[in-house]
């Protein structure tokens, strides 16, 4: 028995057979099967010691049964014949108790999905426990060499998504992800760095530890409070935190329909600085890519912000029908209360090097990332949150020391209207339900308080 060997076959033919078996058992007018597989390995370490190393393999089957426009959904991880019979029966039974859904658009027919073989990297899929442990050791030793300690995680995983329905639609996609995060610590000071890549061989863990250590600078003897408005440079991690919150609060069709999105009253008004373009970019193999959503709608790059003006919200088939639009290919597995979600956020890079951004900042603060962001008013994108793992004081374009963490409370769209510079080097990192790729930016003003 080889521990690293695949336990569940996720090959296309095997999953297609499984999906067809479930569809054949489902006594409904129409039916859809979604198969989601995860084979994830994760090592965590703190203060230089590996304290958790886990592996999980899951293959979940979700079946949506439709009878007379009544929809029922059931899921299971029991993929035996009996398990398939029970899940099909449950889906049909739920549909029978449901009221007709006037907005249900029906299931899509067959489609030739684009194939993205570059989304799968064998080096990532076949990573061994020893190799992950060696990566952790490299991260830890690199931090120790610079006089610090390191905590964080390293994960490698492979994923599969397959969609089939009784209208002969079939889609299958497999990809890999590798993640690294490190919090470097020197005394009370901490610094952070993280990466996401489909290919585990593309990131230098020692370099990542050095990046984090460069932010773990002891605090200056500054005035006790950062209270006031500061010119600020946001590192890509901080930008990603905000972009993820924008996606959560306002770029989904459900929030627009419920009137809670900042897009509702924006029209052609600039939401952010005109130098910001934001896309959902699901076909870029680096993102990691996904060619179709959980309903089998093909994905395409979609503009969310262009020159700072809101362009689109994302739809699944149901919300698209309600809005008189077409699905944008952003359905999450049904049913879910959140509706569609953009999971491949990509902020267009600018033309400034890191030093040019620091020069543009001049005198101000460099913020690494945020922590525990909470929504106060989604229509204004008004949030509260704290800085974390590196708030650095910059004087005349040079980092001169660190400050203590601080809180901001306000509209992040208002802050992003003051973006005056965008970096040319974007970082890809993991986020809720997907990934974000973005560069650093310089803001004219951000109000902070202790």
């Amino acid at each position, binding site marked *: 028995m080889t521990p690293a060997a695949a336990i*569940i076959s996720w090959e296309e033919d095997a999953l297609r057979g499984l999906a067809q078996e479930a569809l054949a058992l489902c006594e409904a007018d129409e039916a859809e099967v979604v198969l989601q597989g995860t084979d994830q390995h994760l090592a965590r370490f703190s203060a230089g010691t590996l*304290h958790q190393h886990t592996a999980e393999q899951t293959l979940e089957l979700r079946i949506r049964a439709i009878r007379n426009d009544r929809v029922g959904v059931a899921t*299971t*991880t029991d993929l035996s014949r009996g398990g398939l019979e029970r899940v099909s029966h449950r889906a049909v039974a739920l549909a029978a108790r449901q009221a007709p859904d006037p907005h249900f658009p029906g299931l899509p027919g067959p489609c030739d999905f684009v194939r993205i073989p570059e989304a799968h990297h064998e080096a990532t899929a076949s990573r061994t426990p020893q190799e992950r442990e060696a990566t952790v050791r490299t991260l830890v030793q690199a931090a120790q060499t610079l006089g610090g300690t390191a*905590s964080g995680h390293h994960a490698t995983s492979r994923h599969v998504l397959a969609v089939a329905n009784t209208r002969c639609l079939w889609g299958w996609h497999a990809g890999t992800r590798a993640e690294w995060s490190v*919090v470097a610590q020197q005394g009370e000071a901490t610094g952070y760095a993280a990466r996401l890549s489909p290919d585990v061989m593309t990131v230098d863990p020692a370099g990542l530890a050095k990046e984090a250590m460069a932010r773990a600078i002891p605090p200056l003897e500054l005035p006790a409070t950062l209270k006031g408005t500061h010119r600020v440079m946001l590192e890509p991690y901080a930008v990603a935190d905000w972009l993820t919150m924008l996606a959560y609060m306002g770029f989904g069709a459900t929030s627009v329909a419920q*009137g*809670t999105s900042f897009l509702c009253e924006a029209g052609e008004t600039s939401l952010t600085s005109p130098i910001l373009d934001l896309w959902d970019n699901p076909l870029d193999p680096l993102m990691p890519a996904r060619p179709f959503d959980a309903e089998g709608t093909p994905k395409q790059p979609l503009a969310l912000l262009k020159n700072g003006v809101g362009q689109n919200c994302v739809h699944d088939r149901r919300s698209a029908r309600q809005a008189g639009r077409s699905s944008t290919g952003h359905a999450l597995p049904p*049913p879910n209360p959140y509706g569609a979600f953009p999971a491949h956020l990509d902020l267009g890079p600018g033309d400034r090097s890191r030093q040019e951004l620091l020069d543009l900042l001049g005198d101000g603060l460099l913020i690494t990332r945020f922590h525990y*962001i909470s929504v106060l008013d989604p229509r204004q994108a008004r949030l509260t949150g704290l800085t974390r793992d590196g708030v650095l004081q910059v004087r005349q374009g040079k980092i001169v020391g660190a400050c203590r963490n601080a809180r901001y409370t306000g509209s992040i769209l208002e802050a992003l209207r003051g973006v005056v510079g965008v970096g040319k080097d974007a970082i890809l990192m993991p986020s809720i339900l997907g990934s974000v790729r973005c560069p650093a930016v310089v803001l004219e003003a951000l109000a902070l308080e202790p």
Partner: protein
Amino acid sequence: MREVLDWCLDLCAAHGVTYGDARFVRTFSEAVNVVNGDITRLSSEESVGLGVRVLVGSSWGFAATSDLGRIHVQAATARAIAIARAGHRPGQPDLLLGRPVRTRGSWQTPVLVDPFTVPLEDKIALLLGADAAMAAVAGIRTRQAMMALDRHHKIFANTEGALVEQNLTEVAAALEARAAVAGQSAARSYPDARGHHGFTGGYEYVLGLNLVSHAPLVAEEAVQLCTAPPCPTTRTTLVLDGSQMAIQLHESLGHAVEHDRVLGHEVSFAGGSFVRPDDLGRLDLGSPLLHVWSDATTPGGLGTYGFDDEGVPAGRMPLFEEGRLTGLLSNRETAASRGVAPAGVARASSWQRIPLIRMANVHLEPGHHPTLDALIADVDEGIYMATNRSWSIDERREAFHFGTEIAWEIRKGKLGRMLSVPSYKGRTQEFWARLEALGGPATWGLWSVPHCGKGQPSQFARVSHGTPAARFGDVQVGV
């Protein structure tokens, strides 16, 4: 199913591991959501699988599989052993787990009305009835009514001889109305925000919420909030209801006393704690009124069970007594490092995840003011806030900012005008030192945090807090 666990433990024994455990979990869930009269979610979910945890010397390994065939279960066990061996360094001292856990027994949530036997039509009708009651109020833009039911069948066994079986049943339901009036928008919930107000127990808990009869007031208050004046920015006396006290307790004290946070294991993700390892018995938050305890046996609590996911029996222990730190939430490993018994609060969110130190039910002891009215009667000027809306706290659990759905000004011992977008902020130790008074048992109730996040891969635990209304002096509000 015990045979499946034996496949794991036999392989562990054959490989001479230091310790091994296997945990089978079958979770069955049903959810109904109604939005503006449409049933937007009607789902039935089943998740079945097995997690195997292995200790080799000083190194843990864990693997999980959803395929329960013998070859797959044994392969998962072999994976866990291989992972543990990859991290083991010969010569390092073995990791200690304290006294062996050889518990044998079973436990199930007391249930009067099995929620899975209640016809789905009845559940839908209940939510549609509440929806209709909210719809009768002019100015409501979005109405939501939600119900979620879960049952977890768990069997745990370890190489020390433990074998425990549990059936846990959870129910949850809630309402939310969002109004849009005069260009303003506001939301109001019942019984609590964030979608669910949950219990371990049967359908009797859902019926006891009386959703339909509360629906009109939920909608009316949402409409009134749209034109209510905003909470002023000032320092004042602050009275909090049980809902907000639950999240205050959860974020500022509950997480802070999790032993893995104290040791820095979560520093890169969920964060650390202002509590240091040597603070036990010394740290004094400065309020003799503050008595906090952990109790995984509280009837109805979402953190109520017979045994944790290390097979340790559920129990009760003090965390703060008269404001002084007297306990930490620990698992077998961290408890052994202090030479004490584990708290019985190691929990995994599913079969795929390892057990982590989690709050079970963490409660604040009630005080002597018999009612809310009594608590505010001697307040000359202040604000009463109710129902948590937003929460944010730094990674050391010190600087916090909370918002509630609704507030009322207090003038000369009476509630006055309704106030919108209430919020307050503070620092944990200063804040608790300003605790002036606690409501009595009549103001004490169970509130839930159904999606408490921690760990990588992320895990969401269900937690309950028993909290009374409380009064604090000189707090910054309107921030």
